[in-house]
């Protein structure tokens, strides 16, 4: 019997009714399927209720980055040839720009890379090059793995043939998608080729365990249509089962011989899927019988290095989401812009089996062209089996375009009803057929907007009368309930999106040149929210009634400005004003275009302009103009502290200008592009070409990209980097309103570029520094805070943690939630103290939580402690370093298991009344033992001495048996210091590593006075060159059993002028790494502890942290670093909560 033709299959499919759910989303698991579907145009000819979703069917796409790193490195080795399947040659990894990022690039640099089409070619290659080791880099699914097994089961292989196996099983990826309950598809087309080897039965778990229609299908259009027909039938019959729609080749059990071969040589292992993570039982590894040919065993150091280098997906790359079918290729942020087949960023744009590559070569350019058309449904005349349901959705659902999305979705499915915000949640009531309501529910979670993180908190069936709809078949967005409370999530400020940017650049668009162009995916959020729920009427934009055009967009469910709260246009939105003080009085320009032009002219002219942005004002100046920089430093009284630089957005990924100045690593590049748009600290390139005055004495520069449309407008015209430093008076919070700006900055700024959108919650730019492969936060600010965290169990009472003194933050925690405020600042200044009080009010007000207990530091001189004790609320004290340690353990969810946490910082009051800062604490939150520390030293002169590190260097020298003072000390000052030191006058005892850094810096760099915190330590880190030779410092147990490091030999070593200062600085770092290893080793010996943590401001030092991480891991420890929280005192408030949580619940248990 002849098989039906594709046309006949199509007719059969069309003859079937539409499924009651309204649509059927069918995933395919094989790149070959996707290629056929796309190139044969099946999506266009199939009924529009069938949505075909490309799935994880591209082995090249999921090949882990470390394997590519390793292959690249091997290809560059002298005696190695890397052979691999064609696609693999071009897949990029995240190597630094100056290094080869793909095998192709390695080949261009002289690497030996040979593309092959079959395993047999590899054998030939090995025989032709007996003097080289030929590494077969084999990525593939089961279909490819079988012939590889066949090759390596041969007994006549030359010795120089090695295997780098990166093979994967397909079914675990589908199991992974199904396991989280929101697979995003309703039926599955299983891969025919894989099934020829492994058998159709492998897929039975999909219909039987998960109830999804499933068919194994072949690869021609006809065979695919046969498979689609099979699953559609199953869906209509509501009898999910496993159909074999490829019986020509596939049997139930598969190719037993191939399976046996594979089984003999390979074993099933857990394996890494790029962008997805490790999946259990999803990979093949070499069994011991193949050990001799396993490249991983031959080159362990290469793989170790490669593993250490692996990172996230390239910045902006959404390949992981594409592979999992969660988005379609054009929805990727880079599709078609930064990522094209000729210059691929992600693997999906490389491989012939990658969905992006397939769609691109089929001509899909934008979402609108997507062959996976919208779920369109023809109207139903009668409405049988109507029912009504109510959902309450929690999670991040406000301020992210969620209600408009719900309305669009409901309209498409022709559901009647309404959606509204209510107390931080979204409530949906909808009426329709059960199937459609099911489909609706699935889509709510799966197709939610990019910034949303919805979760169904409640689902109930209600009476149809309870669905308040104005007319049948309409679905409306209702005004929010004013009722606050509930699990509210604050939406965060988001940078302008590409669509809005494009409109701003389009001369035909009414937003052309408008600096406040936004939509539901971008714009200010937290900074403009008066109270929740998030609605325009409760934001500072309420002062800007929408014009007719904006109102139309706001009310059009198909428009991306539908119910977007921060929109506006030149007719109705916020406007710019320029004010300039001069000899002939103030010049004020209220015409927005003139204002912008004047600001640009002033900046071009080397003047300092205070520019109002999202969270406050920046002081901006031409970063290439040394006179402007000098003026800014002088007027700001900021002689040394580095300035951040905002660089123009250029090139496909926006980073072209950054690359010109700084050495970009992937983690940093990703951080730079993230929605947070933080200041990222980069090592400067040797030829950076930036003014030295930006960061005197340092080899790093803080860079940020434009995030407000206004920044883009400024930088596009100026086309040069601008200093963009928070506008404040030294030590005070960022300034956010016009009157304050003009009053406080009158002597700093030459001019002001204001706008009239009020900033209700000022928030600084965040700061990150790449350390150990991640851009770790040093300060949380706009776009990253308030940061919400989940607690592992319930707090018995709502608590407020007021943090420390410098880098102040506060935390509000209740039930199982914790919210960390943005950076507040140093609490010495009145205005910062006022901001501190306001921040507490803001969090309590927005979240509607009244704390009953205040957690504070042990230091009575901290403003936060005084505030707590004056608050009238119950108070508990948490020692500074206990909080540090608890913050780190809390971030990693370690509340019970013992951890040895090194809390190294500059100063904090210890429970024994001395000033700690070099402590190793062993235990878990709520229960810490003082394991190790440093021998105490006296620091006469209190805080003043910390600003003059030479004093400490001198007294530490005296304590180490050295006589001479450090350069800056002389005459009467030195005599006073000596007298004060001998008498221990106003000289508290310290054990703080941060102070050792100060002393070391003063010994190696002339530094009469530091003008900002950590200046000495930063200089010391920048000074260090080379690996450094560690000293073995003696340790002794004190009477309390605390192991104390005697630092005196180190101080003496730093005085050894026979060594270059760069070398001594490196030795200093290396020695501290040794101290960590020594103290950790002692703890392991005594208690068996295997997990370590590094926290405290000292670990902002990259050299120390990366050195410590490498050495401690070498010693077999697992090492925890902060990922979401800064390691400095900004984390103290979080630690206070974690410590309090542990103690309160212990107390309550007892």
């Amino acid at each position: 019997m002849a098989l039906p033709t594709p046309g006949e299959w199509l007719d059969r499919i069309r003859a079937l009714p539409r499924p009651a759910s309204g649509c059927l989303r069918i995933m395919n698991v094989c790149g070959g399927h996707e290629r056929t579907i796309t190139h044969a145009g099946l999506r266009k000819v199939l009924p529009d209720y069938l949505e075909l979703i490309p799935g994880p069917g591209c082995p090249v796409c999921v090949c882990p980055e470390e394997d590519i790193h390793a292959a690249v490195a091997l290809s560059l080795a002298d005696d190695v040839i890397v052979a691999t399947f064609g696609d693999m040659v071009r897949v990029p990894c995240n190597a630094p720009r100056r290094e080869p990022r793909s095998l192709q690039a390695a080949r261009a640099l002289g690497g030996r890379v040979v593309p092959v089409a079959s395993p047999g070619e590899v054998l030939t290659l090995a025989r032709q090059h007996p003097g080289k080791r030929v590494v077969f880099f084999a990525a593939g699914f089961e279909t490819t793995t079988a012939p590889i097994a066949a090759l390596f089961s041969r007994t006549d292989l030359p010795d120089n043939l090695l295997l780098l196996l990166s093979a994967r099983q397909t079914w675990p990826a589908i199991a992974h998608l199904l396991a989280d309950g929101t697979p995003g598809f309703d039926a599955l087309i299983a891969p025919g080729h894989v099934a020829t080897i492994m058998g159709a039965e492998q897929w039975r778990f999909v219909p039987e365990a998960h109830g999804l229609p499933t068919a194994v299908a072949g690869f021609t259009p006809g065979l695919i249509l046969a498979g689609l027909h099979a699953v559609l039938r199953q869906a209509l019959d509501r009898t999910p089962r496993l159909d074999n729609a490829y019986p020509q080749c596939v049997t139930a059990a598969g190719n037993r011989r191939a399976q046996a071969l594979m089984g003999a040589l390979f074993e099933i292992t857990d394996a890494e899927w790029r962008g997805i993570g490790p999946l259990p039982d999803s990979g093949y590894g070499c069994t011991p019988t193949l050990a001799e040919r396993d490249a991983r065993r031959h080159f362990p150091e290469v793989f170790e290095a490669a593993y250490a280098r692996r990172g996230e997906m390239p910045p902006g790359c959404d390949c992981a989401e594409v592979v999992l079918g969660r988005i379609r290729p054009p929805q990727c942020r880079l599709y078609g812009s930064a990522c094209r087949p000729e210059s691929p960023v992600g693997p999906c744009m490389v491989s012939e089996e990658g969905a992006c590559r397939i769609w691109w070569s089929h001509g899909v350019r934008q979402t609108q062209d997507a062959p996976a058309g919208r779920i369109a449904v023809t109207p139903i005349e009668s409405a049988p089996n109507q029912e009504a349901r109510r959902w309450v959705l929690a999670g991040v659902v406000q301020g992210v375009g969620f209600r408009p999305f719900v309305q669009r979705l409901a309209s498409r499915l022709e559901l009647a009803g309404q959606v509204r915000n209510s107390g931080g949640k979204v409530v949906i009531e909808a009426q329709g057929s059960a199937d459609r309501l099911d489909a609706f529910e699935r889509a709510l979670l799966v197709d939610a907007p990019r910034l949303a993180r919805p979760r169904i908190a409640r689902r109930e069936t209600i009476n149809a009368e309870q669905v308040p709809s104005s007319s049948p078949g309409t679905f409306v967005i209702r005004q929010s309930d004013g009722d606050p409370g509930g699990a509210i999530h604050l939406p965060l400020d988001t940078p302008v999106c590409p669509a809005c940017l494009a409109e701003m650049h389009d001369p035909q668009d009414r937003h052309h040149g408008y600096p406040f162009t936004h939509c539901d995916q971008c714009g200010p959020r937290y900074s403009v929210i008066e109270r929740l729920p998030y609605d325009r009427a409760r934001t500072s934009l309420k002062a800007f009634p929408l014009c007719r055009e904006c109102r139309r967009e706001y009310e059009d469910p198909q428009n991306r400005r539908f119910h977007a709260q921060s929109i506006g246009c030149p007719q109705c939105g916020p406007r710019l004003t320029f004010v300039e003080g001069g000899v002939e009085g103030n010049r004020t320009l209220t015409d927005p275009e003139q204002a912008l032009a004047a600001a640009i002219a002033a900046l071009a002219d080397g003047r300092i302009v205070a520019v109002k942005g999202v969270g406050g004002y920046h002081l901006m100046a031409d970063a290439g103009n040394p006179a402007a920089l000098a003026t800014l430093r002088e007027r700001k009284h900021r002689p040394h502290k580095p300035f951040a630089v905002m660089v123009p957005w250029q090139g496909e990924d926006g980073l072209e200008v950054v690359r010109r100045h700084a050495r970009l690593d992937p983690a940093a590049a990703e951080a730079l592009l993230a929605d947070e748009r933080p200041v990222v600290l980069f090592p400067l390139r040797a030829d950076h070409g930036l003014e030295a005055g930006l960061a005197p004495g340092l080899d790093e520069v803080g860079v940020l990209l434009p995030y407000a449309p206004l920044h883009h407008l400024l930088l596009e015209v100026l086309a040069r980097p601008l200093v963009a430093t928070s506008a404040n008076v030294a030590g005070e919070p960022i300034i956010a309103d016009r009157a304050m700006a003009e009053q406080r900055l009158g002597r700093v700024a030459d001019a002001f570029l204001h706008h009239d959108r009020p900033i209700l919650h000022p928030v600084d730019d965040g700061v990150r520094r790449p350390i150990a492969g991640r851009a770790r936060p040093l300060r949380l600010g706009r776009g990253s805070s308030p940061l919400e965290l989940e607690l592992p169990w319930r707090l018995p009472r709502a608590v407020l943690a007021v943090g420390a003194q410098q880098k102040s933050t506060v935390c509000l925690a209740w039930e199982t939630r914790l919210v960390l405020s943005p950076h507040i600042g140093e609490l010495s200044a009145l205005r910062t103290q006022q901001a501190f009080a306001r921040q507490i009010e803001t969090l309590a007000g927005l979240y509607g939580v009244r704390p009953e207990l205040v957690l504070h530091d042990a230091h009575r001189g901290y403003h936060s402690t005084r505030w707590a004790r004056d608050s009238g609320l119950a108070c508990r004290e948490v020692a500074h370093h206990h909080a540090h340690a608890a913050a780190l353990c809390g971030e990693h969810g370690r509340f019970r298991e013992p951890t040895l946490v090194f809390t190294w910082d500059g100063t904090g009051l210890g429970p024994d009344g001395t000033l700690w800062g070099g402590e190793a604490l062993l235990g878990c939150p709520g229960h810490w033992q003082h394991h190790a520390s440093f021998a105490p030293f006296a620091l006469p002169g209190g805080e003043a001495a910390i600003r003059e590190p030479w004093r400490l260097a001198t007294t530490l020298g005296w304590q180490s048996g050295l006589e001479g003072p450090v350069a800056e000390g002389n005459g009467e000052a030195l005599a006073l210091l000596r007298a004060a030191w001998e008498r221990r006058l106003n000289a508290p005892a310290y054990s703080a590593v941060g102070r050792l850094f100060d002393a070391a810096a003063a010994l190696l760099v002339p530094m009469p006075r530091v003008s900002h915190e950590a200046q000495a330590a930063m200089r010391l880190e920048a000074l260090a060159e080379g690996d450094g030779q560690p000293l073995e410092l003696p340790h002794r147990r004190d009477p309390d059993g605390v192991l104390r490091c005697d630092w005196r030999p180190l101080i003496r070593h730093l005085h050894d002028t026979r060594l270059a200062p760069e070398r001594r600085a490196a030795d200093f770092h290396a020695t501290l790494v040794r101290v960590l290893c020594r103290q950790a080793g002692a703890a392991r010996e005594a208690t068996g502890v295997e997990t370590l943590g590094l926290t405290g401001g000292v670990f902002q030092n990259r050299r120390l942290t990366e050195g410590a991480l490498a050495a401690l891991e070498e010693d077999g420890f697992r090492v925890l670093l902060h990922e979401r929280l800064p390691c400095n005192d900004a984390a103290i408030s979080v630690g206070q909560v974690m410590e309090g949580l542990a103690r309160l619940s212990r107390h309550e248990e007892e």
Partner: protein
Amino acid sequence: MTQPGPDTATVTLAHGNGGRLMRQLIDAVFVRQLGNPWLAPLADAAILPPFPDDDHELVFTSDGVTVQPLFFAGGDIGSLAVHGSVNDLAVCGATPRYLSLNAFLEEGLPLEALERIVASLAEAARACDVQVVAGDTKVLPRGLCGGLYFGVSGIGTRPAGLTLGTRGIRAGDAVLVSGPLGDHGIAVMLAREEFGLSGNLASDSASVLPLTRALLTMPGLRFMRDPTRGGLATVLHEVIQATGLGVTLEEPQLPIRGSVRSVCDMLGYDPLYLACEGRVVAIVAEDEADEALRRWQALPQGRGAQRIGTLDPHHDRLLLVNEWGGERLLQELEDDPLPRIC
């Protein structure tokens, strides 16, 4: 007059037993130096003449003097005992008239030192035109006090109806200080620690009577205080607590000697919290501030006077504004100030 025997170059417990030695000591040291018609009878209490008229009210104060060391550049515990009480009376607008003196002597105190101290005390009292009219002497065993403590009470008179105090203070009023801050605190500290510094750091210990008298006739005078323990900052914190108003100080206006500043910097002290023993802080109506300053600066004790700040209704803290507008909050004094910089 009988001198104590040669065997007692130091104070002994026998000097406190109420017997002959004690009488000898009182006669030889105290009465000789302080003698006046009311003290002479050495009765249990002094009988004082009635005050001249009803338009005056009595002002009464008490003070313990425990400074260590007993001698320091610019003064000693004797002069300090007088200035402490005299100044307390003076800043209340009073004219000091009589003092009582309790001397607690430590066994082993050299009599020579005691004599120098009492001589200094007597000289200070003469200069202030006050009489020591009652007294008591106790001797404590070695180790129970630092050589010598004094307890002083003082009586003065002032015109009735004078309303000095925090209640009259208004927003916008000016804060004046009569001279450099911190001199006494630093001088005593350097003496105590035997730093042996060269230089000219001396205590400001002196009577402030001329300073207070100069302002008493001004209707705009609200408040005066001598910033002793805790210094200027502590006085102003009391004002803030009493009035609910903030005080904003202009850092460039603060009179602080360079030598005091550099020692403070090195040792980690803040001169605004250090004791003065011859300065006055005055709060004066804004429109009379210039006149008050002029009057002070015309006096030798007031040459270094400055207008330093303002009562500020915009906050309720003690705020120090530097030359470029940067602000620092001055906290209330901690028991034991610890560094907070991390």
